[in-house]
């Protein structure tokens, strides 16, 4: 669906140059909700803006629906952009137009006939739940409502891709959830590919199917959300995950536990049905270790359960080894902390 090959972007001023993106390779499959997460300044905004050529890449290519975006003429690019919707952190609605006229706007640009425009607007308003506010001006709307207008506007021309540039970063947590639910609904209803740029792991956790972590102009890891959450490779990814699933033990406790002979601390990550099996009692019975539960949590990752249990195991090195193997054999991910 979307292929990004060897993409680089260097900003040059007369004095110096700044590499915003370096050698980015990504494949975003059709129908995915693909999250790209990074801290501010990591290059994520530049990346999404390269996708519809709002930013000109320095090298590399972007292929959307078989079209090489970097090779299009001005006219072709404008035509192609009509099939790529985009929503923004600050909504970017036309202040002088009402809600429905904002939705009309991209259709006017695409040159739709009047009759078809009216009909399309009538379909879109209920989709985003704004029938009642059709004649309101953006200034009279709440942030969440503004973003709903943004979404309706982005969907007006029936695009195959929706780019979301920090679309929930200016919203409160509750509104964020409602906007994310709407995006998920749209994704399922229209099999629309959604690319989300964010610095909030919560957004990734709620709706993304895949995630790429971007740090200092590079993609440091990417994959299906579940595997990245269970087995993060990079420091940035680990930090992001602990922001939504905190399982860091206090240093004082770790130091204390380190004094105990024959003690090992492990974190067990589990996903889906594993959450409902009596694994701990089996572990004690079968491996001859004592188990001390230090910390645990469980939450949803999209619609599957995802949890982490931090345990202190006590026993001989052979017992400990056996215990880890047992847990791995039950399809759990074991991480030795100390």
């Amino acid at each position, binding site marked *: 669906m979307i292929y990004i090959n060897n993409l680089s972007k260097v900003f040059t001023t007369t004095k110096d140059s700044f590499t915003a993106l370096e050698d980015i390779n990504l494949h975003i499959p059709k129908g995915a909700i693909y999250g790209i997460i990074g801290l501010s300044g990591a290059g994520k905004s530049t990346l999404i803006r390269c996708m*519809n050529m*709002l930013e000109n890449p320095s090298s590399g290519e972007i292929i959307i629906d078989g079209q090489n975006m970097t090779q299009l003429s001005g006219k072709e*690019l*404008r*035509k*192609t*952009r*009509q099939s*790529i919707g*985009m929503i*923004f952190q*600050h909504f*970017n*609605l*036309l*202040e*002088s*137009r009402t809600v429905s006229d904002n939705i009309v*706007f*991209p259709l*006017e*640009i*695409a040159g739709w006939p009047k009759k078809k425009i009216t009909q399309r607007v009538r379909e879109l308003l209920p989709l985003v739940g704004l029938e009642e506010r059709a004649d309101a*001006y*953006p*200034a009279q709307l709440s942030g969440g409502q503004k973003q709903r207008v943004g979404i309706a*506007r982005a969907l007006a*021309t029936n695009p195959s891709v929706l*780019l979301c540039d920090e679309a929930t970063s200016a919203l409160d947590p509750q509104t964020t959830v409602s906007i994310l639910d709407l995006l998920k609904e749209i994704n399922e209803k229209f099999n629309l590919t959604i690319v989300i740029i964010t610095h909030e792991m919560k957004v990734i956790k709620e709706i993304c199917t895949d995630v790429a972590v971007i740090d200092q102009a590079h993609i440091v890891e990417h994959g299906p959300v579940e595997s990245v959450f269970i087995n993060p490779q990079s420091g940035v990814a680990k930090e992001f995950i602990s922001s939504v699933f905190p399982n860091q033990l206090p240093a004082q406790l770790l130091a204390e536990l380190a004094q105990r002979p024959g003690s090992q601390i492990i974190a067990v990550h589990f996903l889906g049905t594993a959450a409902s099996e009596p694994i701990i009692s089996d572990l004690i019975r079968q491996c001859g270790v004592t188990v001390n539960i230090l910390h645990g949590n469980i939450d949803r990752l999209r619609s599957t359960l995802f949890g982490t249990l931090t345990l202190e195991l006590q026993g001989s090195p052979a017992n400990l080894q056996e215990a880890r193997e047992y847990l791995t054999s039950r399809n759990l991910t074991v991480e030795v902390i100390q």
Partner: protein
Amino acid sequence: MENLITMFSDPAYWDSLSRIIPKALNETLYMVIVSTFLAYLLGIPMGVLLVITSDNHILPNPWIERILGTIINIFRSIPFIILIVALMPFTELVVGTYIGTKAAIVALVVSAAPFVARMVESSLKEVSAGVIEAALSMGASPWQIIRKVLLPEAKSSLVLGVAITTINIIAYTAMAGAVGGGGLGDVAIQYGYNRYRSDMMLITVFILVVIVQLIQWSGTTLAKKLFHR
């Protein structure tokens, strides 16, 4: 006091007044309306060009921006009275004469258009980069952005600019007398100043004040109506 009474009771006084004032008012309105209209006809494209060719805008072009900016600055720095004289050959070329109301309009337009260009520029610069980017992301062409984003989004600010420009042009019409342009300002100078006719001075100034108030009030009211932020 007695003087005034005699003057006001003299039908000849009212007769001369009714010959002078309505004609002057007519000339002023004619000059102001026509030159404001023409100044905008020239000024809007210049203002738009200044904005879209600026750095990080939709058609950045430092050369056009710089050259146009410099020309505008040059015309804005020439004192109006000098401009009237300097433009005489050009005026004659355009309207066939270098005296009279029509001739004054040429000078007014040449002087006001660069001012309008700057007013339009500052109004259009208020349109947020985000909105322009959104339009670009939908595949809008530069022309569509100008017509459907920049100008409509700046409507309210542009209307306030029209009020300011019109009032400025009214002030400038007073100098149009130099080329026989006539108008209320000219009456104030010819009668009120040169012939010590305080009554004429008061009447013309009063009418001008009313006109200015009216324009500013309509501008502010309309701008408020168009403002949706």
